[in-house]
């Protein structure tokens, strides 16, 4: 591969990293051409028309709009081309794929905490199987962090107060840097870790070695009862509240006439800010759990509700 010829250019390992590198090369070539032309003209004019050099200076190029229009149009066209290239690749990067595996990432000063669906958790490391699209659902417990894996040419801010999701996929097993790219306080530069991409079989073996006591969904179910959610949302409850069974992924009609998809973000918002989106036909009686549940607990609740998707209400 041509990239290997450049000693400091580490090859990317994601589905898109080759395209991003190609875009970078395109930008580099275009800039070098412009810069080369500019430096050539500057040097040529500076040498040829230096004071005292007897050279014909007659017949100067008349100032005409032809020149201005030409180089303005040329710049504009080149820029438009680069815009379209960068934008279409950008859209492609964020296009979700079917059959994703969801992994939760909680960022806090100054560590990355990763929760696998089976209940395995790890700190400052993220193990994933190769050739498998992974949907990272990320939340921050305090300030803004940014999840950055240079080898994947991917980065996404983790802003507190909301879920951010990002699809990643690695093509080659190995250990890669994970950095926090958004300044987050004292130990910002220590908020690093590694992405460990493994063959699927190795990943499965690694998961079983971790020996979790219970899955995230089970822990979420326990929390669901412990925090009193089941009192209203549970089967056979006396209070009229929307059932959680079969909810995830469906269209929910809201009291203001709009509908939303019951995804991770909707569930999270409904737990923290229950009055912002009221399901049609229900009274806004649910208390807010803002400040009462941590990000870790929140994601377990979400996973639990998600696990009820196949059940009948």
């Amino acid at each position: 591969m041509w990239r290997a010829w450049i000693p400091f250019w580490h090859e990317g390992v994601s589905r898109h990293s080759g395209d991003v590198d190609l875009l970078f090369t395109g930008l580099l070539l275009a800039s070098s051409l412009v810069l080369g032309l500019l430096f050539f003209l500057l040097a040529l004019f500076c040498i040829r028309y230096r004071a005292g050099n007897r050279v014909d200076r007659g017949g100067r190029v008349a100032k005409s709009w032809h020149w201005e229009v030409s180089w303005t149009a040329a710049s504009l066209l080149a820029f438009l081309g680069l815009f379209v290239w960068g934008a279409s690749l950008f859209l492609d990067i964020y296009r979700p794929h079917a059959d994703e595996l969801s992994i939760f990432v909680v960022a806090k000063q100054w560590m990355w905490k990763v929760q696998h669906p089976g209940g395995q958790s790890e700190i400052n490391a993220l193990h994933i199987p190769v050739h498998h699209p992974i949907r990272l659902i990320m939340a921050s417990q305090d300030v803004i962090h940014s999840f950055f894996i240079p080898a994947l040419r991917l980065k996404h801010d983790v802003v507190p107060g909301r879920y951010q999701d990002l699809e990643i996929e690695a093509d080659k097993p190995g250990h890669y840097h994970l950095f926090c790219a958004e300044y987050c306080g004292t130990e910002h530069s220590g908020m690093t870790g590694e992405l460990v991409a493994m063959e699927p079989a190795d990943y499965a073996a690694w998961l079983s070695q971790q020996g979790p006591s219970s899955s995230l969904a089970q822990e979420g179910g326990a929390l669901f009862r412990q925090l009193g959610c089941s009192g209203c949302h549970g089967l056979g409850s006396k209070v009229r509240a929307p059932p959680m069974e079969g909810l995830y992924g469906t269209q929910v009609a809201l009291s203001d006439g709009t509908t939303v998809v019951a995804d991770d973000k909707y569930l999270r918002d409904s737990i923290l800010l229950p009055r912002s989106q009221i399901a049609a036909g229900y009274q806004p009686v649910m208390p807010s759990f803002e400040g009462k549940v941590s990000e870790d607990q929140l994601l377990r609740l979400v996973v639990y509700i998600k696990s009820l998707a196949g059940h009948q209400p």
Partner: protein
Amino acid sequence: MNEDNYLNAGFTLRSWLLTTDHKRIAILYFASLIFFFFIGGAAATAIRIELATPQADLVSSDMYNRLFTMHGIVMVWFFLIPSVPNTLGNFIVPLMIGARDLAFPRLNLLSWYLFMLGGCVTLFAIAAGGVDTGWTFYAPFSTLYSNSHVVAAVLGIFIAGFSSILTGLNFIVTIHRLRAPGLTWYRLPLFLWSLYATSVILVLATPILAITLVLIAVERVFGVGIFDPKISGDPLLFQHLFWFYSHPAVYIMILPGMGVVNELISCFSRKEVFGYKFVAWASLAIAAVGFLVWGHHMFVSGQSVVASLVFSFMSFIVAVPSAIKVFNWTATLHKGSIRFDAPMLYALAFIGLFTIGGLTGLFLACLAYDVHATDTYFVVAHFHYIMVGGMVTAYFGGLHYWWPKITGRLYSEAWARAAAILIFFGFNLTFFPQFILGAEGMPRRYHVYAPEFQVWNVLSSAGASVLAVAYLLPLFYLGYSLFFGARASANPWDAPGLEWQTPSPPPEYNFEVQPVVTRAPYQYSKNFKAEPQNA
């Protein structure tokens, strides 16, 4: 210096501190900015020494974070933004348009006092223990989590902002109302078009910064939920507000530099600026479109994809007027009679460095690449090519060009050329390796870093030591010329602008008789003699 001039019009401290003469106020600004430049520079030096090795050795992480914050705050608000407008602009604008002073001389003095008050409050914040938020004050870190002197620092910048607004207002009114007879808009030197565009941004954008800073203080002190989601705020709201000021502020920091370069390129190639009207309107186009690109700082923040597409597009559009300027400067050289005095060396360095900064800006405007490059050293290198390679180089160029006019003395040409060349090499050695670091994925604001990045960091630190020496040189030879330099004539470069048609240093009231402008700027005869604008 037998005749009366503004320098020997009074020698008491009072005659300086209560002056309303734009030239003396410019000198007050010069002195203050040199002070702030070296404070910001000292922080940069400490940062580069620390980064010579991957581990933490010189300072603690808390100290490192305070150093880069101090470097950013001081350099942006107390050096770059006021640099050309408040020093060279203050001195030259009335001279260039044939006026006795700016439109509001007392407001001008007030502006300096506000600047110094803001500066002192910020220095207090630094001395009291510093600030660790970065110059960007991102919330909720700045409003809730930081244990440093955020409120004091924010207050200092808030106060200094009013100095910016007053200066911008003063320039706008002056350029509208005080032009000499015959000085029509299209006869204005391009330096004034640039400063006019800058002033428009100063007046329109700085209030947004003021509001944003007040909101930080309100949330931090009173716990009112504005930016922190824990108390129902929105962290992205802060970024929108902050960049709505701070991206136009980038143009506050570069437009005046572009203005200076027009003057230098024209004077030292003995030709009028190619495409005058296009260059003039390009400044205003940059000022206008510059207000519509702020979201390109937020491509990975979770803002909507549509917003990202629009901001990326606008960011490419704003690059067009800059490209127009670069092409026109190059065309100006064609068939000129080019002299390579020190100011011209700075101007040529500016074109090269600014173009590299501008082209790498396209990389960052390009959505898919920005996802990788944002918040890495690629960004750091990019904006230093614009701010330092562009603006500081233009500032030095303008300082050397107008030095004889300001001080009435000539400096050592050999030393000045040596410093210009040294700055160029030191700058590139410092910042070019940072592009590579960024492309490799080294995040910015990292106190400790992965060992594989060390080679490029060592090169960068080596460059920084060259640059530090190069920036100290002018302090010596310009300082020497102040006392021992040869006397300068009224027009040592044989330039056609009005500011050169009055003695050096200028008399207190600038012109003996009101100049009347009879021709366009930048006119030279067939044998490359200047044709003064008022002859």
